[in-house]
């Protein structure tokens, strides 16, 4: 409720006015795609079990890269993986949108989520199973990132139309990051 003399943009009832002011400011930090919480076509990252260290680093890296493009990456995972992200990024600088994996699958199935691009991280048989399921549930671009000690065997098992990144990485995310940069077109920009 607006108090007498209070500017309209502080009333809480004038979201359009506030948005107009923010839009008039310079800088790439506000754009339509990044601020729309209901955007169901935004990029999606599906995470597997957090036992392989490179996953966490690359999840935040992907969120950063999409953020550079003015897009908020939605990250889906189980309770453990989301908790790791919350602790790693307490200010939600990168991991701004997170959701439970089961709910994400339900939303993909019900077309409440229709991501234009989806990345799936997999380092186990279960990860390959999830990647395959995601392919069946989404029509957009799918990038499967396969890592861990069994990466090559798992990569050979993944038989779906998608872009594949395979790297036997466990602790060092450098090579995977380089391949992600190439596939996602992030190579041109400096980190």
């Amino acid at each position, binding site marked *: 409720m607006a108090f007498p003399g209070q500017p309209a943009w502080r009333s809480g009832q004038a979201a359009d006015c506030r948005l107009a002011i923010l839009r008039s400011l310079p800088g790439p930090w506000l754009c339509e795609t990044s601020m729309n919480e209901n955007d169901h076509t935004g990029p999606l990252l599906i995470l597997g079990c957090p036992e392989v260290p490179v996953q966490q680093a690359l999840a935040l890296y992907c969120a950063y890269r999409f953020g550079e493009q003015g897009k908020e990456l939605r990250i889906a995972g189980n309770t453990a993986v989301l908790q790791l992200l919350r602790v790693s990024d307490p200010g939600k600088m990168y991991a701004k949108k997170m959701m439970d994996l089961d709910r994400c699958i339900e939303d993909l199935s019900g077309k409440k989520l229709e991501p234009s691009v989806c990345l799936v991280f997999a380092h186990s048989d279960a990860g390959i199973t999830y990647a395959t*399921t995601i392919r069946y549930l989404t029509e957009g671009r799918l990038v499967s990132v396969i890592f861990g000690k069994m990466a090559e065997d798992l990569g050979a098992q993944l038989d779906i139309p998608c872009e594949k990144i395979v790297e036997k990485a466990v602790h060092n995310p450098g090579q995977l990051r380089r391949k992600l940069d190439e596939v996602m077109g992030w190579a041109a920009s400096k980190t």
Partner: protein
Amino acid sequence: MGCVEDLGYEVLKSGVSFKESRAFIEEQCEEVFYVDPGFRIFEKCLIGVPPIAIGLKGPVVMLPYTKPCYGTFILRVESTEEADMIRAKGRRKP
């Protein structure tokens, strides 16, 4: 019909690969039906690599259930309603 958690289930196998789960179900069940990933059963989307085998023995349903950290489980759940639904919607051949 209810969620698999509410109906109660028996875990027949745990930590198996998806191929192993399919082979187990095909070996153990009198009737086997095949569905694609995302098929809804017990109010959940089925996670898996196609063709996903679901086994039936009368009202008993044998199905794979995948969790990210634990791999694939094979569950045994008794539900006449879901068994009939699978007979109606599943494929007889992979």
